[in-house]
């Protein structure tokens, strides 16, 4: 793609095609708008998480489509078809393992992206809408993880879903309806699998594409927030366009994430447990790792009893979610430097530490039960 004609008198075939499309679509203008975005303070590694998330989503979509060529979403064939993918399809084990670890990477990168926005104070006016749409995208990513976990139809999948739906059941007003709708019967079965599959491969991807588009549109309207500290002269001197430096950093970030997910797929490829049955046997039911911290604090005595279980499973996470939604509206101080916002810094450290602590506690508790 070149803006200037080649040195010869006649344009090349590529230039002719480019001109043809440009006359009809306005490619030059589009490319200029996409690439010549001003980045205050210059490119930074801290800004790569948004692009990385887009990359992970694309890779999840590609691997997901390839897996769907072989996967059968029925209760009597889901397990066998997953085993077939793992053992008989060429490179099937790598595709499935990449898809599995990709979902984990997505959760980690969403948390990193949200942390970066929070710590940089990039949710403040005029970027409140970007933050809200971002929160909705975070919920969708968690939904992807929750619905995808059931599909292999082994004991781990079955019981993680059972525990997850039971936690959802404790939600006031909507909880009972949602739990019954998702399960489609008294115990997880064919209806559950069908509904989770459709939500996983149709509803959530469509919603994510729409919201991600809106997120990007709002981001381009408001513009990047830039670093939270630095003298105006320094920021002005370092201000740069999105292309090429930020794009280069994004590409390197994507390569690193691809390498990390591949390394995880080699290190710990997906291995299924026994086929799902309503009898857990020796298996101790637990949700997937990113819900383990909620699961572990439900084991605490202070959250025992019906009220305690509700508070632990829905009350506190709901309160946290509500605080995140309202954050840009009650935090109206224009100060963005995180070192001058002690409550924000302490709050983030406490939340991250408690999530880590309870997740590791759940793993130790699992070993204790085993």
């Amino acid at each position, binding site marked *: 793609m070149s803006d200037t004609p080649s040195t010869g008198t006649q344009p090349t075939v590529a230039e002719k095609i480019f001109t043809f499309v440009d006359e009809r679509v306005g490619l030059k203008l589009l490319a200029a708008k996409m690439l010549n975005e001003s980045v205050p303070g210059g490119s930074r590694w801290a800004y790569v998480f948004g692009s990385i998330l887009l990359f992970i989503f694309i890779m999840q979509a590609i691997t997901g489509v390839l897996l769907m060529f072989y996967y059968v979403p029925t209760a009597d064939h889901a397990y066998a078809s997953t085993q077939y993918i*793992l053992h008989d399809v060429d490179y099937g084990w790598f595709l499935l393992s990449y898809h599995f670890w990709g979902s984990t990477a997505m959760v980690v990168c969403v948390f990193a992206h949200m942390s970066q926005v929070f710590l940089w104070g990039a949710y403040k006016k005029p970027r409140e809408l970007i933050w809200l749409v971002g929160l909705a995208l975070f919920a969708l990513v968690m939904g992807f993880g929750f619905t995808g976990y059931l599909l292999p139809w082994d004991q781990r999948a079955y019981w993680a879903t059972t525990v997850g739906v039971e936690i959802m059941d404790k939600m006031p007003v909507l909880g009972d309806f949602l739990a019954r709708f998702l399960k489609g019967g008294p115990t997880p079965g064919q209806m559950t699998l069908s509904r989770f599959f459709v939500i996983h491969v149709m509803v959530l991807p469509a919603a994510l594409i729409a919201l991600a588009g809106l997120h990007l549109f709002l981001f381009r309207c408001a513009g990047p927030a830039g670093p939270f500290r630095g003298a105006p002269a320094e920021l002005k001197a370092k201000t740069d366009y999105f292309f090429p430096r930020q794009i280069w950093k994004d590409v390197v970030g994507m390569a690193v994430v691809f390498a990390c997910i591949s390394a995880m797929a*080699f290190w710990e490829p997906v291995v299924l447990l026994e086929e799902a049955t309503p009898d857990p046997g020796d298996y101790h039911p637990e949700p997937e790792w990113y819900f383990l911290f909620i699961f572990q604090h439900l084991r605490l005595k202070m959250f025992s009893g019906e009220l305690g279980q509700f508070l632990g499973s829905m009350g506190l996470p709901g309160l946290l979610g509500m605080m995140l939604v309202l954050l840009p509206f009650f935090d109206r101080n224009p100060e963005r430097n995180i070192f001058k916002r002690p409550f924000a810094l302490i709050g983030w450290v406490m939340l991250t530490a408690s999530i880590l602590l309870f997740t590791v506690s759940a793993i130790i508790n699992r070993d204790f039960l085993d």
Partner: protein
Amino acid sequence: MNEHISPTKLGFGILWPAFWTGLPFKLAFAVLFLAFGIIHFENRIALAFVMLLASPVTVFAVPTVTLALGSNIGEGPGIALLFLLAIPIDIWSLGIVGRTFFLERLRREPPGGLGLTLWWKCALVGAIYVPILWVAQGAITEAAIAGAYSILEADVLRGIPVAEGISIKLTLWSTVATVALLVLFVVGFSLVGRMIRRTVQSAGHAPENYQGLIVRWDLMRVPLDQGWMLTALSGAAVVLSVLFWFSLPVFTPHPHDCCKKPEVMAEPPFKPLEILNENEKMIARLAAQVELLVEQRAKSELDKEQSKGKGKEGTEIVEAPDATKPAAPTAAKQ
């Protein structure tokens, strides 16, 4: 120019970006070696990642930790090869980070051969300090775990439920271990900063104003020939991708019990001439055996006839029963 930059800030300011600058290249090799099956990290992948990330300081410390302290980050010949390949990558990354740091943060002219100078200084500090850090951190963590367990085993706290007990113990020992690790890291960065301070002091001041410095700093981060750089990187990416798909196992290296493939025994190759010769030899051998048996039979029959003739001439000889004929029933004799 920040004349009074602390050694910790100096060490951290150079090492931290250098760690991440070299990582993508090192990761590419690590993934390839994993695909080749010459590296096995077992349960220590997080530790292996940290050691690889920090290879400018851990490159000589890893053998010490493995051989002298009996603790390894994984197995396989690929680990040694990986850390060997990390050396030129680290020299390059320390060079590029060092030059930009000298110019932008210290406002000094970066001296020639900066990457190599920074690398050997970092590697030297790491070779001595990282094993000390390893031992100290291990001892502190063990002591903290023992302390946390002994606190929870006190009579007053015995009634604490299991889940609460686990979280309290984890909080107690992990807080101590994390604080100790942070302190040890700060000391380590400070040591590296002290080692490279002399290089900073011997560098001359940069003559330009801030805007001029930023322009130079910015150009330092961009390759001189971008087309060549893009071509080289694209070529490397293609080669790595081909190698990756070539080395990637087709089937899972961890098959489930229910789906283990049956062991197929390969049949020996069919060689008609050899088999024909063997059969001919066998037929000849069997024919010789049959001939021998016939001769023996004829000889024994001849001997019998001769002995019968002798018996008729002398006393009557009682004939021994033929083993091949069925014995006569006892009742019939009676």
